């Protein structure tokens, strides 16, 4: 017999997602493709030594940020971990500035001083780019605290991984958010692995939608490879938070195709497992197939989008290679104001 479900957790995979209009399908296609191509380019540039340090690619998880972006208000805040390139592109941050930060150049979002893991944009309500696993969760809760304080109707979204979900500070944040009914969505991007550790080897409770049960925070498991399901669940969660009912948990079931970072040989899973995901659940292929079978757009129209996306990414790569390094005097600026 299945364990009794908390009344406040549900699996949205059980319901058919709302269909997208033509414009929505094309928007999702274009934005997910931009992330995919950008990340592929970043991977190549890392191999060429143009990007240094850690570089965590978002390939495979594109539907999560794009679906959430489609549901959120422009001024709702985003905050995430080091796996942040996709979040920034989805938020509408400029690809040139993101790529130039990856190469450590002055035109990067942090003037080259932050790197892949540390970028921010107040304008796009993106609060970073954080390297310490779990730290963004209380920070995101603090953004929600400010929203409630100001009564401005904004909702904050704190993204974190299945591995981060085991950090103690996450639960300290949950408790305060539940206690004070803060407008925050905890988006757990369950991509099945934390570095080389599969979820089942690190988590006593692997249903992350239940992680809020002892704080009375409702949760949902969402098919994070289907951008429509993501948008639906996000809309529900946003409505819940915005109406003053407190925090909400979305477990996005997704998958990372690449290694944890560029130096991860990914020997902890089989090639077949990765291939099966790519073949059967790829978020971009799903949209593409729907567009073509429904006749919403032709192969040629999609090719046109592909070409435009490639051009955007190529322009970003060129900019990121040609933009100069920061001036030496930048070493000493921005330490304090």
């Amino acid at each position, binding site marked *: 017999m299945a364990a009794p479900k908390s009344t406040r957790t549900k699996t949205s995979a059980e319901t058919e997602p709302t269909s997208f209009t033509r414009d929505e399908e094309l928007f999702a296609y274009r934005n997910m493709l931009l992330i995919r191509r950008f990340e592929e380019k970043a991977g*190549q540039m*890392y*191999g*060429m*030594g143009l990007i*240094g*340090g*850690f570089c965590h690619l978002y390939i495979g998880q594109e539907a999560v940020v794009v679906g959430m972006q489609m549901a959120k208000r422009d001024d709702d805040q985003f905050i995430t971990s080091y796996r942040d390139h996709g979040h920034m592109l989805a938020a509408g941050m400029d690809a040139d500035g993101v790529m130039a*930060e990856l190469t*450590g*150049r002055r035109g990067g979002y*942090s003037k*080259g*001083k*932050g*790197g*892949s*893991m*540390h970028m921010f944009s107040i304008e796009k309500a993106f609060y970073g780019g*954080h*390297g*310490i*696993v*779990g730290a963004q969760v209380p920070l995101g809760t603090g953004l929600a605290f400010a929203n409630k304080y100001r009564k401005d109707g904004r909702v904050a979204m704190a993204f974190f991984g299945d*591995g*981060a979900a*085991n*950090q*103690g*500070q996450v639960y300290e944040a949950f408790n305060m958010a539940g206690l004070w009914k803060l407008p925050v969505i905890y988006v757990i991007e369950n991509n099945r692995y*934390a*570095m*080389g*550790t599969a979820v089942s*080897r*690190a*988590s006593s409770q692997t249903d992350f939608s239940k992680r809020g049960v002892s704080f009375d925070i409702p949760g949902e498991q969402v098919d994070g490879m289907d951008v429509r399901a993501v948008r639906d669940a996000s809309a529900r969660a946003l409505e819940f938070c915005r109406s003053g009912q407190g925090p909400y948990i979305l477990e996005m079931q997704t998958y990372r195709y690449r290694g944890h970072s*560029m*130096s*991860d*040989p990914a*020997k*902890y899973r089989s090639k077949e497992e990765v291939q099966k995901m790519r073949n059967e659940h790829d978020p971009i292929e799903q949209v593409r197939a729907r567009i073509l079978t429904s006749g919403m757009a032709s192969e040629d129209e999609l090719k046109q989008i592909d070409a435009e996306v490639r051009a955007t990414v190529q322009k970003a790569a060129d900019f990121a290679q040609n933009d100069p*390094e*920061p001036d*030496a005097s*930048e*070493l*000493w600026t921005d*330490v304090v104001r």
Partner: protein
Amino acid sequence: MAIEILMPALSPTMEEGKLSKWVKAVGDAVKPGDVIAEIETDKATMEVEAVDEGVLSAILIPAGTEAVKVNTPIAVIGQDANDTAAKAASPAPAPAAAAPAAPAIVSAPAAAPVAPEADYPAGTEFVATTVREALRDAMAEEMRADADVFVMGEEVAEYQGAYKITQGLLQEFGADRVVDTPITEHGFAGLAVGAALAGLKPVVEFMTFNFAMQAIDQIINSAAKTLYMSGGQMGCPIVFRGPNGAAARVGAQHSQDYAAWYAQIPGLKVVQPWTAADAKGLLKAAIRDPNPVVFLENEILYGQSFDVPVGDHVVPIGKAKIVKSGTDATLVSFGIGMTYTMKAAAELEAMGISVEVIDLRTIRPMDVETVIRSVMKTGRCVTVEEGWPVCSIGSEIASRLVSEAFDYLDAPVLKVTGKDVPMPYAANLEKLALPNVGEVIEAVRAVTYR
């Protein structure tokens, strides 16, 4: 047009690697994403994927070649099988031509410049060992000798260590003694302290010491103080170890030197070795020590090779080492700071300035006596560390020299440190933020008025 494939960089610290295997042969068609070769770095075997579509028209570096530098052309992809000519016509890259034709000599990465090991008895046998292997050997030997010793941390078991320090331990000692944890530093550090209070001897690996900040309350409030608070009843035999300080281009939150932080805490011992011999000997001593020991390693040193004495090699905690003797000034450093210090010492020697070099090895309790004895001879002292300047290890040495050897000083004590800013990511700024050999030389010239 034929396209050259270059030896890729596959990790933050990779400069070269072994081209272990070609998966595709000349004449094979390749598509983007196809695995064409395998490369072995010091940490892992990685696959090289094709970026472009075409035919593998030439292999420039044969399988088995060691020490292939990043960005060396390794193969050519042409439009079709006949594109080999196009490749021949394109300027043949010099590094490829110079590449060894057969599996060749491994480069000894930045071979240890130290020779004299005066404190080893004559007849001691040495084996060239990397710092990485030395640390593993120390843990394995102590685990064999004492069933209470166990290793715990993120990715230490099945993954074999994020930096491959615990390689092979799971296989030898099993999952009860080599324990993979969730990402919960505060939790598992506290749990390990509890296990130590119960009499076990945990070796806790932090993936890097940056993440030990999550756990610092348990390290200081629980591990370091319990012996005192319990009136001597309850000790805490535990080792907290992992890479400390800057790696390469990993940015502000992942590049911090904690030597000075832990050095302030009564009840802790703090160790930061430079060579593989000291890494092994001090880790063995740390595991045997009945107190909590913070053991600070360095990612950049992991791959470096040094001579390590064969057998049960234990280095006492709390003893500095005079690595080079000299007469004009004393250079004091520890850990990776020693690499700048030794290079500067050699250059200074060539300039006619004779420096004595002291490797502290243990930060707390600090062997100030050895430093003072040296300064009594030279009258001058320069300290070198990667950490920040304010309240640094250098600050402590300067203060101790002023209070305890004032009459012997002929010049102010100077500190060469990391710059007083968070670590920037940009390559040029990162270089500026770290200390360098030139700064050490300048400081020594300043104190010797030359």
